[in-house]
C-alpha cells in the first residue's frame, strides 16, 4: 500500500531539544519509600484494598477500579503500607495516596497468569487482562486503555493507529522504548489488533527519529503493520491530528476516534499491554525522560510509580544550576510544579527542568490581532479573539466561537508575539463553560422536580377538597 501522508492545519516548530535521545533506558534502583496516589488516571479514584500496616508484594493490587472510568493500582515493590494519607498531585491539589515502605526484598506477588499464546486467546480474556493490569493511556491523558479497546459493537473499527510520534520537545522516552523493545511493541500492537479485530495497523513516527523508523520498518516487514514517517511538526502526535495525517478522517466535534473507525494507542501503552499479556506484569513502572539544561546528566529511566521527582533528579546527577521551572511532562503541554515530593505516576512521560535563561514569562499585553494564533491553531479556532472574549468573561460568546473544541496544545501561546497566556484563557473558559452547563442542568432538574412536586400536591389536594374527606 503506498504511504499517503496528509497535512493537518496549523502547528508550530518549537525547538526540539531532545538531548537525551541517545541515552539508553536505565532501571531506577529500588527506593525505601514510595508514595502511590490512588488516582493516576482520568476518572474516579481507585478503591483502596489494603490498610495501614498490611504487607504487600510487588505487583499486588493496592486499589481496584471503582467505576466504569477508573483503573486499578498495583504495588511497585514489596513492603509495608505505612500510611493511608494524601499527597500533592501535579495540579497542586491533594490526592488520596498510600505510602509504601519497601522491605528491600522486592518479592513479586503471584503474577497474573501469562498468556504466551495470546494469538489464540479470546479477545474478552485479553481485554480483562488489560483492565486488571491497570493499563492507562501513557501518552499523557491517562484514560483507561480497556475502555478505548472495547468500543460499542455499533462502532465499526477498521484502523488501529499506534502513536510513536512523541512530538513534544525534550521528551525521548517513547523513542528509546521503540529502539530498545521493538518486539514487545509489535506484539502489543498485534494484541490490540486482535482485540479490536482490525487488519490495518499504522504506526506513526516523526522523521526526527529516523533510527526508530528504520528499526520498526525492519522488524515489521512480514506483518500487516505499516510504519509511517511523519513530518516534524507540533502537535503531530495529538490524537485527532494524527488520525487525519494517516487516514484523512476527521474526528467530529465532541466525538471520539471510534466514531470514524479508529483507535489510537501510545507506544508506551502497547508496550505495557504486551508486558501484561505475555508476562503477566501489571503496570507499576514506566519509562520517563528526566531532562533539561540544568541537569548534570539527563537521561531515560524506568521508574516505578510512586518515585518522587526528587529521586529522579538525583538519578540524573542533580543540577548544575537552580532551575526556574520544573515541569511534569513536556514543555508544550506539561504542567509546572513547585515541589519535588510529587510522585511519578503512570502518565509522567517526562520531568523537565528549565533554567532562568530558557524561561520566558507571560506578559499578558493586549492582543495586536496579528492572527498568528489563528494560523497555527490545529483545531482551526481563533484563539486571539476567544481570549479577549474570555477576558471579558463572555463565556457564552466564547462557546459560540467553539472554545470547547480547544485541546490546549499550546500552539497559540507559543506563537503569540504579545506573550499572552492564551491556553490559560481557554482552560479557564472550558472549565467555566462546563460549570455553567452543569449548573443549568441542575437548575432545570430542580425546576422539574419542583413542578412535579407541585403537580403531585395539586393531585392530592383535589380529592382532599372533595366533600366528605375532612
Amino acid at each position, binding site marked *: 500500500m503506498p504511504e499517503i501522508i496528509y497535512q493537518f492545519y496549523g502547528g508550530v516548530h518549537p525547538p526540539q531539544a531532545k538531548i537525551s535521545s541517545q541515552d539508553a533506558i536505565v532501571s531506577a534502583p529500588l527506593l525505601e519509600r514510595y508514595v502511590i496516589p490512588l488516582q493516576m488516571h482520568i476518572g474516579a479514584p481507585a478503591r483502596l484494598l489494603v490498610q495501614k500496616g498490611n504487607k504487600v508484594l510487588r505487583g499486588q493490587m493496592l486499589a481496584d477500579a471503582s467505576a466504569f472510568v477508573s483503573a486499578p493500582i498495583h504495588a511497585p515493590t514489596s513492603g509495608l503500607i505505612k500510611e493511608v494519607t494524601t499527597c500533592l498531585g501535579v495540579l497542586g*491539589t491533594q490526592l488520596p495516596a498510600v505510602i509504601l515502605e519497601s522491605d528491600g526484598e522486592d518479592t513479586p506477588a503471584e503474577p497474573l497468569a501469562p498468556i504466551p499464546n495470546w494469538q489464540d486467546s479470546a479477545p474478552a480474556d485479553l481485554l480483562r487482562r488489560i483492565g486488571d493490569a491497570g493499563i492507562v493511556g501513557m501518552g499523557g491523558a491517562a484514560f483507561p486503555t480497556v475502555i478505548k479497546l472495547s468500543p460499542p459493537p455499533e462502532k465499526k473499527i477498521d484502523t488501529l493507529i499506534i502513536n510513536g510520534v512523541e512530538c513534544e520537545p525534550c521528551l525521548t522516552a517513547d523513542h528509546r522504548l521503540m529502539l530498545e523493545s521493538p518486539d514487545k511493541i509489535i506484539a502489543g500492537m498485534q494484541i490490540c489488533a486482535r482485540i479490536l479485530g482490525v487488519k490495518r495497523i499504522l504506526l506513526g513516527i516523526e522523521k526526527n527519529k529516523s533510527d526508530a523508523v528504520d528499526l520498526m520498518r525492519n522488524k515489521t516487514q512480514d506483518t500487516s503493520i505499516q510504519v509511517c514517517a511523519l513530518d516534524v511538526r507540533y502537535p503531530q502526535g495529538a490524537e485527532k491530528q494524527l488520525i487525519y495525517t494517516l487516514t484523512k478522517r476527521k474526528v467530529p466535534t465532541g466525538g471520539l476516534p471510534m466514531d470514524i473507525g479508529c483507535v489510537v494507542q501510545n507506544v508506551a501503552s502497547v508496550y505495557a499491554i504486551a508486558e501484561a499479556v505475555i508476562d503477566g506484569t501489571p503496570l507499576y513502572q514506566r519509562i520517563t525522560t528526566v531532562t533539561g539544561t540544568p541537569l548534570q546528566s539527563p537521561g531515560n529511566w524506568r521508574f516505578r510509580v510512586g518515585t518522587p521527582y526528587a529521586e529522579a533528579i538525583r538519578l540524573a546527577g542533580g543540577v548544575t544550576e537552580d532551575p526556574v521551572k520544573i515541569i511534569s511532562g513536556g514543555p508544550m503541554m506539561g504542567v509546572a510544579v*513547585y515541589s519535588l515530593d510529587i510522585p511519578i505516576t503512570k502518565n509522567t512521560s517526562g520531568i523537565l527542568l528549565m533554567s532562568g535563561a530558557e524561561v520566558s514569562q507571560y506578559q*499578558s499585553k493586549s492582543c495586536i490581532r496579528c492572527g498568528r494564533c489563528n494560523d497555527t491553531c490545529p483545531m482551526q479556532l481563533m484563539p486571539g479573539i476567544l481570549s479577549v472574549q474570555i477576558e471579558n468573561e463572555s463565556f457564552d460568546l466564547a462557546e459560540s466561537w467553539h472554545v470547547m473544541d480547544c485541546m490546549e496544545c499550546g500552539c497559540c501561546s507559543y506563537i503569540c508575539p504579545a506573550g499572552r497566556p492564551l491556553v490559560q484563557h481557554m482552560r479557564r473558559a472550558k472549565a467555566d463553560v462546563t460549570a455553567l452547563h452543569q449548573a443549568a442542568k441542575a437548575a432545570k432538574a430542580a425546576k422539574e422536580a419542583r413542578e412535579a412536586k407541585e403537580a403531585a400536591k395539586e393531585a392530592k389536594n383535589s380529592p382532599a377538597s372533595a366533600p366528605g374527606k375532612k
Partner: protein
Amino acid sequence: MQAVVILLSTGVLAGLAIALVVKFFGVQSDPLLEEVAALTPGANCGGCGYAGCAAYADAMVSGEAKPGLCPAMSEDNVKKISALLGVTSEVRVRKVAVICCRGDDDMATRQAFYNGINNCRDAMQVAAGAKTCTYGCLGLGACARACPYGAIEITSKRLAVVHPELCVGCGKCVQTCPKKLIKLVPASAPLHVLCSSPEKGVTKRKACKAACIGCQKCVKAAGEGQIRMNGFLAVINYGDPPSAEIASSCPTGALSASIAGTEQSGPENEVINA
C-alpha cells in the same frame, strides 16, 4: 422651497409610521410591574434567586415570589412593594459574606511565583495557585470583580476581605471563589473561623501563621454548643453564636471578627412586616 417640502413630508411620514407601529406592535406594560421594578435596586446581582431585578419584579407581581427576598433592598422599599402588592413580606435575617481565610502574605507562605492571568479562577488551573496551603485565598480578586456592590477589597498583602457595611449578602462571590472560601453568615454574628483548611494542625501551622490549628481552646471558652470541631477545624454555630470576647482564646487569631471595615453597622435583624 422644494427641500423644505421634502423634509416636512418625510418627517410627517416617519412620524405616522412610528405611530402605526406603536399602535399595532406595541407591548402594553403593566404599570404595577413598572412601579415594582423601579423599587428594586437594579444591580442584577441575583441574590434573590432570580435572573435579575426585572425577573424578580415580574415574579413578585405574578405572586410567585414574596418581597423581601432581595438582599440589597431597603426596608422602606420592601414595605412599599408589599403595600403595592397587598401581601406580607418575609422576616429577613441580614446576611453578609465572610472570607474564611486570613492567610495574607504576612501570614501564609507561597510555594512558587505564579505567572499568568491575574484572576483566581485562572490561577486555579496552574498548580492551584501555588500557595503552600492549598485551601487558602489566592488574593487575585475574582470575588472582588464579581461583587456588584464593591464590598470586597483585595489588600496590599493579597487577601480578599469583605466590608460588611457594604455587603448585602447576594452570594455572587460565593459562587465565584474557586477555593470555596466564602460563606454567607448572619450579619449579627460577632466571630468567624477565618480558616478553611481541613489539614492537620501541624501541617496548617507550617503553611500559615493564622490557621485554625484545631487546639479546641475556643470550644472550651465558648458556651455549650456554640463552637464544635469538624476534624481539625472549629465551626461556629451561627444559630447560637459565641460572644466576641472569646476571640482572645484563639492562639493564632483564626477566630476573629470580620477583619475588614469598622464595627458591624446596620440593623442586626431586620424584621419586616407589611
